Structure formats: C-alpha cells, structure tokens
C-alpha cells in the first residue's frame, strides 16, 4: 500500500519510536516527583522543551505540551476568549480553518461571543486588509492557520502579524499543525502570540502536541488540577510522547532543506500528469512554490464522489483522503473548498493527496498510475457508459 495521506497522520520515524521505547523502559518517573526518578524525568522534559524552543526560535518557558493539536487550538482560543472576556468578546478567524479552530469558534458563539469568519480568495487565501477591516474595539483574538490542511495554501501570517503590531491588545493565534518539516515557522519574528503544533503530522507520535504562548500572554487553561506546564495545562506529562515529539521535530527540521524540493517536485509531477492525462480536473489552492505547501495537493473531479474515488484508489493500493480526516465521515461538501468558491458538485468530487518525508519517487508514480487509471473509468460510469 502506498500511503499518500500524510496530512491526516504520518508514520512515526523509527528513531522516534526508539527514543519513546527507551523512555518507557528507563525513565518512568513522574516529572513532578521530587525524588531522583522524578528528577530524571524532569531533566528530560526540560531538555525536550529547550530543543523544541531552539527549533522555533522561542524561549523554553513559552512552550506548553498538550495532548495534540486539537487541545492546543482549544486551549489557545477558549483560553484567550475566556481570560479576556472583560475586555471584549469579538474574535476574527477565517472560513477555511481546521475544525479544531472553526468548531471552537462556533461554540464560543453559542456562549455569547461574536466571531467574524473572513472569506478567502479563489486560492483559499485570506487578505490581510480584510483582517484589518474586521478589527473592532472589542476584538481580543485573531486566529488564522498557517498552511491549509485541505488544499495547502499558505496564509500571509507575517503580514497579518505585522499589521496587528498596531493593535497590541489583539492577540494572534496561528494553527501551524501542517507546517513543521515543510515550512519555516518563526512565531516571534512573525508577531504571533500563540501557535499550535501536533506531533503526528511530522512523523512523531499521536497524543502529543504543543502550544507556543508568548511570554506575557495570559489565558485561562482548558485543563486544571496540578499546575503542570506553567499552569497552562495540568496533567502528568506524557513523557514518551513529548520526547517522541521532540525527536520528530529535530528530524523534520534537519531534513526540511532536502525534503521540501523533493515534495514540491512530486506535487508538480502529479499536477502535470493529471492535467495532461485526465479531463475535467480542477486543481485547488495555490500551487506555486511560495504560495502553497509542498506536501498537499487537492484535486476536484466534478460529477464524481470523493469517497468513491478514495475507495477505488485504495483498490489500486493507494491511500489518499476525501478531505480532512477529522471530518471525513460527513457526506457534506467541504466547507473549506466551498469557501474558495467551488460549487457543491465540484467540492464533493475532491480528494487530497499528501506526501510525507518517507515517501519515495515510486510511490508518486504509483499514485499517478492509479489516478489516471481510476478517474477515467469512474467518469465513464458517471456519464452513463457501460
């Protein structure tokens, strides 16, 4: 089976598994315990935090380990909304966020907050001037993702961060779950106050993520009771998970320079193959080298159903996804693609192909072969052929 669904989750790197396995065997103490075994765990935790901090160019104290990207996003958005509710109850986000941001905003609306969902252009990109125009007296948070998980478009985070410098009371959160190992991530330089990461998206383990909270930013924690992680996130730290996250981040960063051109080349090869060899195909999002993430390719085949395509490709030994795994069971057309202006028919016929650091050239060739074999057959059936 060829795995081309790396935006849903990735295969942990063997080195990641090895360090996790070692930690489980040797460093089982609770980092909050005062004895030597606890101290050993605490030192390891400190090292992990410092390592991730170095990669992101931030201070170790500004990193909060969580149980994943969803928890990081929930902590950031609900935490800021609640902490600063006395100052204002308005949030700004976009129509193309991951469910872990979008659904949180919807929930806050039910609790009495006002949320502006900014539109995006045809490539799925939000305009910084729209962010500026949406700012109100009572705006407390702007949340914009870095890389869109469904079509790969990169949002103008540094530009938004720059314009928000003039509004020091408005905090800026960025969901950067799809970024590590593919794009450079500089929260401090970009004027970002909060940034979410997830281990299993860059060949680390599931069940662990991280939230950058710029020093000085206050928020009401999602989980209380114990005061771990500087009080931002209570609960005994998932030590093997955190160490696995850290190892994966180090490897992703080391490999980025050589992995990105390769992923980008694969993306171009796939785009060329489908445009040359298939009919009625639409390529979604910004596919330029600067404007799109190298690992995500979104294709639409109007008239087909994405689930049918996914299963047909699976029969050919290729795993891709219909949209975000977090919402892949719904039958509705993707909210994100619709926000980019796709009609329902085109949106329901969309698939996402996403590559990882462990794919090889042959995987891409097999993916292309499977697509070019499956799609014409399905299109023929849909048009009433035999």
């Amino acid at each position, binding site marked *: 089976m060829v*795995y081309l*669904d790396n935006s*849903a*989750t*990735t*295969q*942990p790197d*063997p080195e990641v*598994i090895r360090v*996790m396995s070692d930690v*489980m*065997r040797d460093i*089982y*103490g609770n980092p*909050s*315990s*005062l*004895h*030597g*075994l*606890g101290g050993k765990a605490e030192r390891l935790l400190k090292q992990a935090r410092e390592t991730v901090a170095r990669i992101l160019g931030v201070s170790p104290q500004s990193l909060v380990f*969580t*149980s*994943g990207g*969803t*928890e990081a996003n*929930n902590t950031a958005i609900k935490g800021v909304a609640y902490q600063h509710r006395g100052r204002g109850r308005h949030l700004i986000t976009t129509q193309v966020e*991951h*469910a*872990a941001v979008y*659904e*949180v905003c919807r929930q806050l609306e039910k609790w009495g907050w006002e949320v502006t969902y900014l539109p995006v252009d045809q490539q799925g990109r939000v305009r910084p001037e729209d962010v500026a125009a949406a700012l109100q007296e009572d705006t407390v948070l702007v949340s914009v993702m870095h890389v869109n998980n469904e079509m790969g478009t990169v949002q103008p985070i540094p530009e938004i961060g720059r314009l928000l410098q003039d509004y020091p009371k408005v905090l800026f959160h960025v969901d950067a779950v799809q970024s590590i190992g593919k794009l450079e991530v500089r929260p401090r330089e970009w004027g970002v106050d909060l940034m979410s990461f*997830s281990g299993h998206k860059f060949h680390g*383990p*599931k*069940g*662990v993520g991280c939230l950058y909270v710029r020093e000085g930013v206050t928020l*009401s924690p*999602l*989980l*209380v*009771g*114990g*005061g771990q992680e500087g009080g931002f996130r*209570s*609960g*005994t730290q*998932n*030590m*093997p*998970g955190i160490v696995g996250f850290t190892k994966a981040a180090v490897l992703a960063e080391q490999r980025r320079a050589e992995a990105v051109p390769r992923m980008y080349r694969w993306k171009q090869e796939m785009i060329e193959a489908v445009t040359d060899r298939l009919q009625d195909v639409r390529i979604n999002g910004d596919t330029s080298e600067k404007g799109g993430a190298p690992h995500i390719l979104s294709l639409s085949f109007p008239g087909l159903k994405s689930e049918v395509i996914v*299963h047909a490709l699976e029969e050919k030994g290729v*795993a891709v*996804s219909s949209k975000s*795994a*977090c*919402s*892949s*069971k*719904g039958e509705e057309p993707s909210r994100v693609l619709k926000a980019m202006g796709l009609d329902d028919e085109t949106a329901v016929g969309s698939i996402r192909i996403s590559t990882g650091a462990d794919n090889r050239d042959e995987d891409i060739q097999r993916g292309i072969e499977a697509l070019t074999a499956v799609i014409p057959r399905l299109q023929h059936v849909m048009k009433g052929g035999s």
Partner: protein
Amino acid sequence: MAIYLDHAATTPVHPEVKEAMLPYLEQQFGNPSSIHGFGREIRNAVDRARDQIAGALHAAPGQVIFTSGGTEADNLALIGVARALREQGKDHVVTTQIEHHAVLDTCEFLEEIGFRVTYVPVDATGLVSMNELRQAVDDRTALISVMYGNNEVGTLQPVEEIGAFAREQGILFHSDAVQAFGVEPLDVQRLPVDLLTISSHKINGPKGVGALYVDRDVPLRPLAHGGQQERRRRAGTENVPGIVGFGRAAQIAMGNREQYREHTSRCRQAMLEELESAGVTFTVNGHPERHLPHILNLSFPGADTEVMLMNLDLEGIACASGSACTSGTLELSHVLKAMHLPDEILRSAIRFSFGRGNTEEEVRQAAQTIAATVKRLTEQSK
C-alpha cells in the same frame, strides 16, 4: 538500584503493554478517522481497547470516552456535566475537601463561571462525612463528585452509599477512581455511579491516556471541540498507541487484580512490621481498615518531610510527600490539613505506595533504611 515506592505517582510501563503498543507506532500508524484501509484497521484497534476498558468496568463500550489522562477525564466530567445541567437551572456542585487537584481546581473554575461548590469535610481518618454530604445538596445541585480512594492516604470513601443517596435525590454522581482502578472491584452495573475517571499510567500503562466512563443519558458537553471523535464528546485524533497500551494494561490488571491486592498488602504490612520492630515512632495517616492496599501514609514526628525525602532519595528510596501532582512543590498537604491532624504529623508525613515491581524483601530493606534515617534525624534535632 533505587527502590521505587511511589506507584501512586506513576508506574513503569509493563513490558507486555509496550509490546502491544509498538505495532501501532510502527506499521499501524493510520488515522482512525480515515476512510481507507489504514484508518479502518486502526479504528478496530481502538475498538478492541475500548472493549477491554469497558470489560474492566463492566460497562458498555459506548460508555467509555478516551482522554489524555485522569486530569482531562476529571475536567471533562465536572465541566461537561455542569455546563449541560446549567441549561436546566442547576448551578451547584458538591465535592470533598480531599479530592485530587484535578477535581478541586476544576471546582474552583466552576466557581469562577458562576457555580456554587460545597466542599464537604472529612474526619481524622479521611472519611467523608455522610451527614454533611446529605446536608450539602439542594434542589439546584447538578453533581456530586467524591473520589473512590484517596491518593495521599488511601482512605476508601463510601461510594455506594453516596451513589445511592445521589440516585435518590436525582443528582448525578462522579467518582475519581484513578487510584482504585486495578485494585478495587469497579463494577458500574453494581456501583451507583454515573461518571468514573480512570488513568492508564497508574496501572502500568503509558502516560498520556485515560478514560471517562459516562452512563447513558448523562448529559455532557465536550471540553475540546473540533472533530467527531469519541462520539463528538472529545475532539482530537486518538492517541492510538496510548489507547491500545491502556487497553492491554487494563486487561493485565484485571487478570491479576487479586494477586496484586495481596502483593501490595503484604508489602504494606512488611513496611509496618519492620518499622515497628525497629522501634521508631510513627503514626499511620488514613483509615485503619477502609484503605487502598497499595498506599501507606506515615508521619514520623520530629523528622521534617522535606529533609526525610531528600535523605531517602540519597539512600535510593523513591517516595513522596503527598501527591506528585502538586507539581514539584512542598506545600502542606490539603488532604492531611482537611483531616485536622496536628502540626507535627502534617510536617512529617510521607507517602509510600507499592506496586508490581516491588518485592517484600526490598520493602523490608527500605523500612530499615527509613528507620535508621528517622532515628538519625530525630536524634539530631534533640
């Protein structure tokens, strides 16, 4: 080689648990929400683990919500129920003064968002006062939350009685059973509980995973939004290796529960015997009979807790002042304070907690070291 007597803080991962987890880190890495084969196989693994946890509690699989640990499960239980029942005009929660911080701090948060919380006192053995608990409820009480067995002194609470009372009053009942799971018989068919918290790393499973049992018809609002996982009650990609490890750990723990009880009881007894025969002065904190078998909380009047811990650590004995979760601090235990123990008992309390890897032999050896340390410290201070 250190003697680890801090199993109530965390336990080493069982080798078979680790073995069970590895395939889900290696080849079986898919996202359970994916519709292709990679996802479906993983979904099956999560379902098997859910069956294992449900089996350990005599619950139905659909009643088990996987979380990132006991803390999240406690937060979810209290905040989830409180938010849901606020819509029905309920604004009151009853708990005790000796809960784990995961419950107490959550109650403080509930107070911040407008709930009233009554913290019921306990007696000198750490047993909650049934009378005061009965008097604490009113017609706007949404939830009673009382832990099954205390993590610092081991006292077992009258959960059956509390649960029966809660049912009678039409109030939901949550119990934090993090320390009791794997040790006490937890049968939700028999126990009148509506929500129950358990944690993996206390039963030789991995850290970063826990579960909340939620009875059918219990209204619960999620803490984390953004994804349809766990029947929309807990968003986020499932920690598959963690969940698989937790399931396996629960299965092993259930198979060995009786032996484990006997084993830890013997270790506890051995510690007491050795300390007595060594002739040191100590008191046992907690209830003399109604206690978890693996927890032993002792005070050595005259030997300051912090100094003791440091000295024992140097001697290779890992134990604790109270809960590890009061994160690296050496505040006086809120549990012992609630038991109204004399100051010299409060200031010299140490928690020993036994587990799978301990031998009776090493516990006796540890006890002798402890006795010698106590003698040295108390003689010095004279």
